[in-house]
């Protein structure tokens, strides 16, 4: 069965195309769309033994008037932020373990790193602590810190991005 995202993409494609009617059938489920003037209308798959249709599709179906405007506006937004992010950073510095994020060696000291700082691969950017093991995290890349993604004292997960770096 199609995923919600795929259906959204289809709506957008059909919306921009000259197609006025579209049907997709697979595994006993059907997705049909029909343009009514400017609108794209989508009907939910027929009930089958397959898993239930995800919630968001049903919502879109219940407010068909918004279908044309909402997804495209959302996508524009996403496109915009995607575009700005891709120019903003190249690398993310991630946490090698579960623990507490510390921006400075002590509460009295200034933070290791602020947005706009230049770092080298050996530069310490923060500490992650768990069970009294203090891990000094190094940048491992040369560049400029463009975004700090966590707050001092926050619990971070294994692999969680902490900083975004624009490479040199």
């Amino acid at each position: 069965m199609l995923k919600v995202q795929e259906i959204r993409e289809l709506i957008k494609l059909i919306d921009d195309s000259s197609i006025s009617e579209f049907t997709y059938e697979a595994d006993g489920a059907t997705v049909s769309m029909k343009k009514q003037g400017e609108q794209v209308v989508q009907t939910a798959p027929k009930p089958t033994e397959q898993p239930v249709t995800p919630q968001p599709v049903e919502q879109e179906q219940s407010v068909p008037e918004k279908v044309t405007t909402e997804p495209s506006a959302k996508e524009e937004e996403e496109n915009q932020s995607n575009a700005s992010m891709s120019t903003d950073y190249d690398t993310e510095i991630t946490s090698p373990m579960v623990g507490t994020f510390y921006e400075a060696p002590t509460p009295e000291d200034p933070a290791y790193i602020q947005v706009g700082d230049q770092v080298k691969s050996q530069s310490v950017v923060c500490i992650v602590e768990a069970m009294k093991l203090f891990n000094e995290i190094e940048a491992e890349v040369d560049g400029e810190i463009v975004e700090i993604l966590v707050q001092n004292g926050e619990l971070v997960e294994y692999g969680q991005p902490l900083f975004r770096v624009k490479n040199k």
Partner: protein
Amino acid sequence: MEDKRKQLIELLFSNKEDYISGQELSNRLNISRSAIWKHMNELKNVGYEMEAVTNKGYRIIKVPNTISEQALRWGLDTNWFGNLINYKPTVGSTQTIAHELAREGASHGTVVIANEQTMGRGRLKRYWDSTFGLGLWFSTILRPSSLEPKNATQITLVAAVAIARALVKHEVDVKIKWPNDIFVGDLKLAGILTEMQAEQHLVDYIILGIGLNGNQGINDFHPSVQEKATSIYQVTGEQVNLNHIFQTISKEFEQMYELFLEKGFGPIKLIWENYAYKMDEWITIKTNELWEAKLLSIQNDGALRVKDEQGTEHTLYSAEILW
């Protein structure tokens, strides 16, 4: 020079039941009889007692109570822990020096130890009282090549278990306050500061810092810690030989560390639980706010399990606990 003295001590130690002649020492070390005699005098100066019997040779009968590289080494029964001992009478912080050595490539098991730290520190650079000659302050470089950074955190509990076992051998009955403080009653006897340099999947090195109070009387402590700290001397009423304590800890740590690498945290957890401080008791936890919780257990990964007043259970990896 240093090297010859180290070898001399090792020779004397390996023959500790027997006398070893000046000639044999001279042959084995490939230095003159008079050079041997000079080294012997220097050993006496740092507190060794030597028995010299005509036609038999030398025998070591007592190691000094004060810390020195020779005394630390004499009787050290380990495979790699302390294979290199960097002894300094006075340093700012053994931790800082160990970091420098590690960055220069110092090997697994290298120890930095001092009689006095002028800037001894605990976590968050908190003050650590390290008065000349009264305790053990040392930092050890570990390079666990088979350990991923995310699994390295349990090292702190491994170290606590090793110290606890070592102290029990010296007849000091201790508890471990999660994750790794060593307590007698409600007073701190030893602390551990563990710092790691790691990449995502690779531990570069770990510095295991240990501070242990040995022979302090109550007034030897800085007033700011007098009500919180204790020493072996205060617990047992007897002065201890810090060199011996170092050697016991070294051996225990080596064993516990190898057990941990080989079998994982499971067996360490069982030992840790025997020493758990305030288990099943209520404590106060400080996160964004203060809340009461009952200590339940430690998890298979060393994290702390607690239950709040509503009966909800929580897992803690790091928390400020007001014990």
